[in-house]
């Protein structure tokens, strides 16, 4: 028989699985001894079998190992008992308890280590999960605010009003989107200077020459950025202005802290 015929006969696979009959087994063994290629092929079959099994692996419960280890240990205990040779039955009971206690302590320690270990794994896994979840939430709220930021300027009724910096703060700007159908006022305040601690920007609507509180301008959750935000609604306004006030706002504007103003 040619080596290739041997290799493709299918007998080698059966041999590895011990499924060959006696005659076939002898045959394969003699091939193995004669041809290094056959020996190599057999090893390769064994290797692929092992890899294949690994791909179909099923994790048993941790109990199996614990049971096995305790069985193996109790076996070696059995062996040592006769060599101690205790005549008195009372002492053998004592010994039994010794071994029982020893075995249970070992089991207890083993299971405690496992418990701590699994608890640690569980903790770090749930931490990771929480971190991932909060990241997703943050992303979602960013997307939501970006979406609402886009909605207002794209609204058909939106009228844009630019607020320009006053001499005390010439580079400041702000934008108002005023929806003519509903009177809703939105402000985009990212062009304002950073707000000092304890202070807050307040929007005013000038109606009939008098300033009317239009709401406080809030920073986002991180305290860093201004998103487009909804203020109080007005039907007719002569001008909008923003002043820097103490946190929470004032009933009347502090004119020397006027930051930006518009005329309509």
């Amino acid at each position, binding site marked *: 028989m040619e080596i290739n015929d041997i290799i493709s006969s299918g007998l080698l696979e059966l041999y590895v699985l011990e499924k060959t009959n006696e005659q076939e087994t002898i045959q394969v063994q003699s091939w193995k001894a004669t041809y290094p290629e056959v020996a190599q092929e057999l090893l390769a079959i064994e*290797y*692929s079998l092992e890899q294949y099994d690994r791909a179909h692996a099923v994790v048993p419960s941790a109990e199996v190992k614990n049971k096995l280890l305790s069985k193996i240990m109790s076996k070696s205990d059995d062996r040592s008992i006769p060599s101690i040779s205790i005549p008195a039955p009372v002492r053998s009971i004592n010994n039994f308890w010794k071994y029982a206690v020893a075995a249970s302590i070992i089991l207890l320690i083993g299971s405690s280590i496992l418990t701590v270990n699994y608890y640690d794994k569980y903790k770090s896994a749930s931490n990771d999960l929480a971190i991932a979840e909060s990241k997703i939430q943050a992303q979602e709220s960013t997307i939501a605010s970006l979406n609402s930021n886009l909605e207002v300027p794209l609204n058909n009724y939106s009228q844009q009003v630019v607020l320009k910096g006053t001499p005390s703060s010439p580079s400041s700007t702000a934008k108002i989107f005023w929806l003519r159908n509903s009177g809703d006022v939105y402000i985009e305040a990212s062009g304002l200077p950073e707000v000092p601690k304890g202070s807050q920007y307040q929007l005013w609507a000038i109606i009939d020459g008098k300033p009317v509180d239009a709401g406080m301008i809030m920073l986002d959750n991180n305290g860093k950025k201004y998103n487009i935000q909804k203020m109080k609604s007005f039907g007719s306004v002569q001008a909008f202005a923003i002043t820097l006030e103490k946190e929470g706002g004032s009933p009347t504007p502090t004119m020397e802290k006027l930051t930006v103003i518009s005329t309509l």
Partner: protein
Amino acid sequence: MQISKQQYTEHELVSSLKDRDEKAFSYLYNNYNISLNGVIFMLVNDVTLAEDILQEAFLKIWNNIDLYDDTKGKLYTWMRRIAHNLALDTMKSSQYKNQNRIVTNESVLTNIAVNNNVINKFESNDFRRKLEFLDEKQQILINMSYYQGYTQKEIAKELEIPEGTVKTRIRSAIIELRKIFT
């Protein structure tokens, strides 16, 4: 948890086991329990029963390690035979006799599917992806011969295809496997 980070060559492992070294046994178990449990589960299709047989198999391996002859093959192949035979014996025993061992293609595939669900999460995903390169026919044949314990003759009869075809297909599946895994 790694109780012992020691690595053994196969030869060292066998000789430590023959010296009744419990650490070596622990290492042996850690390295092979999931594979052997998979082999057994594939046959008995019952998680609890598979674990009972797995335990029995490792005890037998521990008690009979002196019978292992490394000139005849790899340690894993020898252990697998013990596990597989124990599983086959269980299936043949009175309790399982009424259950038909005749396995249709469908139930072999179900076994693969069930197996997928309890798959080892640590390292097998990669292997599994690789296995998908085998076509379905090849997977059926490999499973019938490697797991269900069919001879090639029995497979031929069961699937109603010529024995020669079974041999060729198993052969080509093994060649594929080897390409995939090396």
